[in-house]
C-alpha cells in the first residue's frame, strides 16, 4: 500500500497500540497534522497549551499506564520546548517516543527558518534518536524507536522527520508491535554468591527503586520480602511498588526519608538493592551508605553497578526473574528481633488537630485527602516541599499511582503529567499536588484540562514562597532568603474561573475536609488554593553529603 510519510507514521503508531498522542502543530508537522485529522477516528490527539505540557503529558500517560507515551512537536522552538519533558523522562527511565518535524532535507544545515539540530540537542537526554532522511526508512525507524524505548532500562527516543519526508510516498507494509529485547539472566556464580550472603545475613534490608515499577516486579519483591522476613524501604521512584500498610514497610529512604528506613540502612548487614541507583538523594554519603552491609545489586542496566556505590554482588537481569530465582533458592526465615528493631524506629504521626480556626497544615491536607480517596487515585506532584510532603503523607499502596519527577526534579512537571494520566486512566481519580512556584510555571495547561473537562483536582500548596529552596536558605545560608519570596498577588480562584475551571480556598483547618470533599465531588477541573504557612519545613532532613547521624528531625533543635 502506497502512503505518504505522515500516513506511514500514523499506521506505525497504531501498530504499536498507541491510541492517544499529545502535541502541538506547526509548519514542519503540517503533513503529520493533516494525517492526524484524517485519522482522528483511530487516534486521539490532545492539543496542549505548550509543547512542554505535551511532553510531560506523554510521560504522565506512560507512568500511569506502563505504555509508551507519545508527543509531537514542530521543528525549532516546538522541538526545544520538548527538551525538559524528554530530560525528565530520561532521568526517571520512562518510555517515550517524541516525534519532531524538521525543515526539508535540502534545507538542513543552512540555519533555515525554525531549523534546530534537535537530534544533536537531545543526544544526552535520550536513549537514542534518529533523523529520518528517506521515507523508505521511516516505518522501521518508528518501530525501532518503540523497541528501544521499552527495552532493558526504558527511556525516551526522539525521531526527527523533515517536512519533505512526511510528504513523500513509500510502500507501507504492516508489521506487528515492537517487543522489548530479551534480557540475559545473571551469571550462576553471582547468583550463588548472593544466595550465600542472604543465608548468612542476620539483618537484611531491601532498598528498592523505580526499576521495580518499570519491571512490574511488585509480586516478586513482596514474595522475597515475606519469605525471608526482610524489611523494605524505597527511593521516591519506587513508592507504590510495595504496599505502605505492609508490616515490613519502613518507608522512603534518603534525604527526606523516614527515620526507620535510614537507620535500617545503617544497621543492616546485607542490603538488596533492587532497581535503584544510589542517587545522591538516597546515599548522600556514598562511602558511608550501608557501610556495614554486603550489598547485592539487582538491575537491568549493567552501567549502574559500582557507579555510585561499590557493591559486593552484581545481579544483572530482568528483575522479576532475578527476584523469583533468589527467593526460590532460599528457605523461609523468621527474624522477629530484627523486624522489631526496625519498626521500633517508625515515628507515629501526630493526631490531626481539631481546632477549626487553626492554621492549615499541609500534612493534614494530604492525610485527609488519603482518607477521602480510594487506592486507585493517581497522585501527580510538582517539585518542592509539597512533593516531599506528598511522598511522606499520602501513602501509596499500588504501583503507577504516584507520578513525580524524581531524577530531574522538574518544576512544572505536574500539570502535564496529571493530564496525561487522566487520559491514560479515565476511570481513576487524578489529583495534582503542586506548589505556588511550580503552578506558576505551567498553569497554562489549565486550559487543556478545561477543554477536555478533565476532573483533575489541583491542590496548590500555597506557602507564597519557593519553599524548598527557602528551606535550604534557612538551614545552610543563615536565612538569607534570596529570590524565594516572590510576593505574588495571584488570586487563584479568579484565575481558575478565568480559565473556565472552579476555584476553591482552604484558609483554615476547618476548611480542609469540606473543601476537599467539594473538590473531589466536582466534575471538571478544580484549583484549590491551600493557604499554608511559609515556614513549614520538610523533615526529617539529612543534609547533602551526610548520613543518618546528621539527620535533622526538628528545626528548633537544629537552630540551637
Amino acid at each position, binding site marked *: 500500500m502506497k502512503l505518504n510519510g505522515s500516513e506511514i507514521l500514523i499506521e506505525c503508531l497504531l501498530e504499536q497500540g498507541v491510541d492517544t498522542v499529545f502535541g502541538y502543530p506547526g509548519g514542519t508537522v503540517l503533513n503529520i497534522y493533516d494525517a492526524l485529522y484524517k485519522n482522528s477516528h483511530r487516534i486521539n490527539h490532545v492539543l496542549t497549551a505548550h509543547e512542554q505540557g505535551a511532553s510531560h503529558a506523554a510521560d504522565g500517560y506512560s507512568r500511569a499506564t506502563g505504555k509508551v507515551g507519545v508527543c509531537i512537536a514542530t521543528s525549532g522552538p516546538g522541538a526545544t520546548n520538548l527538551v525538559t519533558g524528554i530530560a525528565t523522562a530520561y532521568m526517571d527511565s520512562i518510555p517515550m517516543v517524541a516525534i519532531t518535524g524538521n525543515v526539508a532535507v535540502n534545507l538542513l544545515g543552512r540555519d533555515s527558518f525554525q531549523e534546530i539540530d534537535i537530534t*544533536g540537542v537531545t*543526544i*544526552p537526554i535520550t*536513549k*537514542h534518536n534518529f533523523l529520518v532522511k528517506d521515507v523508505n526508512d521511516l516505518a522501521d525507524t518508528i518501530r525501532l524507536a518503540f523497541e528501544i524505548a521499552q527495552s532493558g532500562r526504558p527511556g525516551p527516543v526522539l525521531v526527527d522527520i523533515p517536512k519533505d519526508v512526511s510528504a513523500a510516498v513509500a510502500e507501507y507494509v504492516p508489521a506487528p508491535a515492537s517487543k522489548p529485547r530479551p534480557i540475559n539472566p545473571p551469571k550462576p556464580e553471582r547468583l550463588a554468591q548472593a544466595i550465600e550472603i542472604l543465608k548468612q545475613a542476620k539483618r537484611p534490608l531491601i532498598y528498592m527503586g523505580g526499576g521495580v515499577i518499570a519491571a512490574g516486579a511488585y509480586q516478586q519483591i513482596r514474595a522475597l520480602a515475606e519469605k525471608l522476613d526482610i524489611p523494605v524501604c524505597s527511593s521516591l521512584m519506587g513508592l507504590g511498588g510495595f504496599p505502605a500498610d505492609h508490616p515490613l514497610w519502613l518507608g522512603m529512604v534518603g534525604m527526606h526519608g523516614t527515620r526507620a528506613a535510614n537507620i535500617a540502612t545503617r544497621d543492616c548487614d546485607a542490603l538488596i538493592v533492587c532497581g535503584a541507583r544510589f542517587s545522591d538523594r538516597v546515599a548522600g554519603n556514598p562511602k558511608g551508605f550501608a557501610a556495614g552491609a554486603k550489598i547485592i545489586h539487582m538491575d537491568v542496566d*549493567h*552501567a549502574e553497578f*559500582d557507579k555510585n556505590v*561499590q557493591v559486593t554482588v552484581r545481579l544483572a537481569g530482568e528483575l522479576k526473574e532475578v527476584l523469583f530465582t533468589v527467593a526460590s533458592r532460599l528457605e523461609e526465615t523468621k527474624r522477629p528481633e530484627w523486624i522489631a528493631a526496625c519498626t521500633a524506629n517508625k515515628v507515629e504521626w501526630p493526631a490531626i488537630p481539631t481546632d477549626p480556626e487553626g492554621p492549615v497544615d499541609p500534612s493534614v491536607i494530604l492525610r485527609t485527602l488519603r482518607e477521602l480517596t480510594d487506592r486507585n487515585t493517581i497522585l501527580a506532584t510538582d517539585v518542592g516541599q509539597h512533593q516531599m510532603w506528598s511522598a511522606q503523607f499520602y501513602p501509596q499502596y499500588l504501583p503507577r499511582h504516584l507520578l513525580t519527577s524524581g531524577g530531574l526534579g522538574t518544576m512544572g512537571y505536574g500539570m502535564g503529567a496529571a493530564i496525561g494520566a487522566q487520559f491514560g486512566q479515565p476511570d481513576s481519580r487524578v489529583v495534582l499536588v503542586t506548589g505556588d512556584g511550580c503552578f506558576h510555571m505551567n498553569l497554562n495547561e489549565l486550559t487543556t484540562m478545561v477543554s477536555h473537562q478533565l476532573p483533575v483536582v489541583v491542590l496548590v500548596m500555597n506557602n507564597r514562597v519557593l519553599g524548598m529552596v527557602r528551606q535550604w536558605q534557612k538551614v545552610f545560608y543563615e536565612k538569607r532568603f534570596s529570590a524565594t519570596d516572590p510576593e505574588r498577588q495571584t488570586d487563584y480562584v479568579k484565575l481558575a474561573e478565568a480559565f473556565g475551571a472552579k476555584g476553591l480556598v482552604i484558609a483554615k483547618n476547618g476548611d480542609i475536609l469540606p473543601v476537599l470533599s467539594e473538590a473531589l465531588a466536582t466534575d471538571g477541573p478544580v484549583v484549590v488554593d491551600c493557604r499554608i504557612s511559609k515556614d513549614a519545613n520538610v523533615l526529617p532532613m539529612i543534609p547533602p553529603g551526610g548520613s543518618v547521624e546528621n539527620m535533622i528531625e526538628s528545626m528548633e533543635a537544629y537552630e540551637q
Partner: protein
Amino acid sequence: MSENRNLTVISVLAYNNPAVLLRMTGLFYRRGFNIETMVACQTDRPSLSRLTVTMTGHNAEIRQVRQQLLKLEDIVKVDVLSIDDCSASELALIKVSATADTRKQVLNAAQAYGCRVLDIGENTITLEMTGRDEEVNRFVRYMQPFGIVEMGCTGVTALARGDTTIFEGLDG
C-alpha cells in the same frame, strides 16, 4: 584504592551511523571520562567502524566506561585490553629544522630510528615515525635539540595479540 591505573585500550566496533562519534565523545565529556587518544577508521565490513580509545584508569572506571558505551545503540561491541596484550602503534609526522650543518645528523637519526623521510625542504625535513607511544616519544625527545617546527600525531591504534579479533562472537 591502591589498584594500579594502567593504560588501557578500549576497542569499539560501531555502526557507521553519522552521529556515532558525536555520541561517543559526548558520553566521555558528560561523564567526565578522561580519554587520552581516540582513532576512528573503517573496517572490512562496510557497515562497521572501529574506534580505538586509550585511557588510564582503575578497573572500576574502565568497567564503567565500557558499560556506558555498550548502552549506546550504535555500538556493537566493546573490548577492553591492557596495552601489553596488544599490538599497538601510533604515527607521528615531525618537521625538523635542518640547516646545511645539521641535515646529515637529522637524516642519520631518522635512519637509526627507522623513520621514513617524507619531504625535504630548504630548511626542514619532514619525518614519519611509527611505533608504540614510548618509542615515538623517545624519538621526539631526541629530535628536540634540532628544533621541531611542527608536528602532527595520531592516537594509538591497536589489535589484540594472537588470533583473536574484535569480530569474535558476532554473527555474520
